[in-house]
């Protein structure tokens, strides 16, 4: 089973996330990771969906997604060159004497301190899934109090685009 990264452009309309998530649920497709946000255009959102499955399953996922009226474009970027990132925030239990150690680890991963409490320290870190996993494992011995990840976002390298094309419009279907 391979993981596939799909970049999906959708209408920025209410309910579109439910439509996509509902489709995955009722057709029995598993979402590994899902990140949603608007693009440079107000009327278009972009979902980066990571799905695990063989080729025929991914083909079905793509075709079924295409049937949703609100889905504008789907690109399976897995086999292309792309950059991907994820943001994690981790809150670690750290007594004052442990802070330096954790900050040293953070330095290795180029993570930043975003909050400091009397007994905790919170880092943010970006990178691909592998780096985030490694960062998490390195902090585990100190006791992770809380961890939140955004899910993966991805973009093709170089002169290739996943975009709608044409000019922006704000009066799309609701």
């Amino acid at each position, binding site marked *: 089973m391979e993981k596939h990264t799909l970049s999906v452009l959708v209408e920025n309309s209410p*309910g579109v996330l439910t439509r996509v998530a509902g489709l995955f649920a009722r057709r029995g497709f598993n979402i590994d990771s899902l990140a949603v946000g608007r693009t440079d255009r107000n009327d278009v959102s972009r979902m980066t969906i990571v799905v695990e499955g063989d080729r025929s399953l991914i083909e079905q996922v793509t075709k079924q997604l295409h049937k949703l*009226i609100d889905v*504008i474009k789907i690109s399976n970027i897995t086999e292309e060159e792309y950059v991907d990132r994820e943001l994690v925030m981790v809150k670690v239990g750290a007594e004052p004497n442990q802070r330096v150690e954790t900050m040293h680890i953070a330095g290795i991963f180029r993570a930043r301190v975003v909050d400091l409490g009397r007994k905790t320290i919170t880092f943010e870190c970006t990178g691909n899934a592998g780096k985030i996993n490694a960062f998490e494992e390195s902090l585990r011995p100190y006791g992770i109090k809380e961890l939140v990840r955004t899910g993966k976002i991805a973009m093709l390298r170089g002169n290739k685009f996943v975009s709608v094309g044409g000019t922006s419009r704000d009066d799309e279907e609701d």
Partner: protein
Amino acid sequence: MTVAEALVQCLERENVDTIFGYPGGAILPVYDALYHSSRIKHVLVRHEQGAVHAADGYARVSGKVGVCIATSGPGATNLVTGIANAYMDSIPMVIITGQVPTSQIGTDSFQEVDITGITLPITKHNYLLKYPDRLPAVVKSAFHIASTGRPGPVLIDIPKDIAQTKIAFKYPTSVRLRGYKPTYKGHPSKIKEIAALIGKAKRPVIYAGGGIIASNASSELLQFAEAISAPVTNTFMGLAGFPGDHPLFLGMLGLHGTRYANLAITESDLLIGLGARFDDRVVMNINTFAPKATVIHVDIDPAEIGKVIGTNVPLVGDVKLVLKALLPLLEKVDRSEWLERIRSLKAEYPLTYSRACGALKPQFVIEQLWQCTKGDAIIATDVGQHQMWVAQFYKFREPRTLVSSGGLGCMGFGLPAAVGACIGAPGRKVILVTGDGSLQMTMQELGTMIEQGLDVKIVILNNYVLGMVRQLQEFYCEGRYMAVNFRFHPDFELLAKAYGMPGYTFKTEEDVLRGLAEAIDKPGPAIINCIVPAEENVSPMVMAGSGIHEAIDCG
């Protein structure tokens, strides 16, 4: 004008002549606007499920978009079964529901349900109208989406306060949906490839589904089959898409298909799937389905191709356009050997039933019904054994003459669908063939039928049992018959009388021979109650897990 008035304007612009519905509180403004429409006829049903099935029947016979309307809450939820039915059978339909005022949405207010949420998996698309100005564009899009590509139901949910808001009305002339662009024209190189494969094939079989009906491709299918001398089998949804009395016709395939259709598929070296979706009741066992065949699959919905079985030549497009493009490329090939084989399969495994026991057999009733009408009638059915007997023994001649619930298998569909069919095909003879179980699910629509003055003949194959379930229990539960026998039925002749129409009861073949034709030909509605044996099974039958070539005789 108000949004409600604009909605009625939009419906008129879409050439809607009939809508089926049931009023209520949240939809009040729309009904008030309908009051002033002289062009739209509103058919008041007895239950919202009747409205949605009637709109479905109307759409199936006319090819137009069926329209139904209901209020919020229970009105909307009562539509759900019918929406699912239309979705499964790809029937073009627009459903309008009232919704509680926007300020009350999400507060569990009186008669509030999230109908767009509920119908998400069973509509092609749906809308909750939040901005009054969007109404014309939403209605235009809804009709466009419902009727193009692979058709399907589209729901528009309109909050009461929005319906009452004043807007400047302008109906859009075009639709702009950047996420929706169906492919109609088949890829030319694939079409050439298909023509070449057909030229080389020795034992081709055409497997044609509901797409033939939806794309009005029956005459192209006939030309195609004759041009390549290939036998044609229909899925249940494809029935009436090919003349039932044509020598190349194999009848229906699959679970209760003819043995010769199933065996022809099994021996075939080229399976040409046209507007069909390799449904589980057709394929049965994926591993033994068409084992020797190269598979061509033409469908307008790309998601159907490769969904169930591997396809050698996939082609996305409208079946009618694809066949039109294909016809000039076909070469005449001598297939007398294959056609001879088909003839011998038909002779060896005919579709038959036993008439020995003296009782009135349901298959005999269907055969006589065909004799009375010679295929020139619209046959609506419900779901169950009677439906399969119609599929097996009624030789449909023209498209859109079978009105039946295929994918969802929805008992209770028949009567309201017959009501819609009768309105959608004025002047046509409409006969509902139903069972004693199915009819009683939506029997209240007899009131609608009489009120509208509709000439629907209701033929009940009455065996006092839920026959299809009984048959399943005979084969899969070792004859433990649980909850299938009715100990009470109304007197259907008296019921007919209560609704002011004639009722007949036929108990023997002689009764049918003597009275059926007269009952059918006499103008006006009637109930024709045929008492048939409970033990009769639909035969042949493919047991679960078996391949279609392993059908058993269970008559």
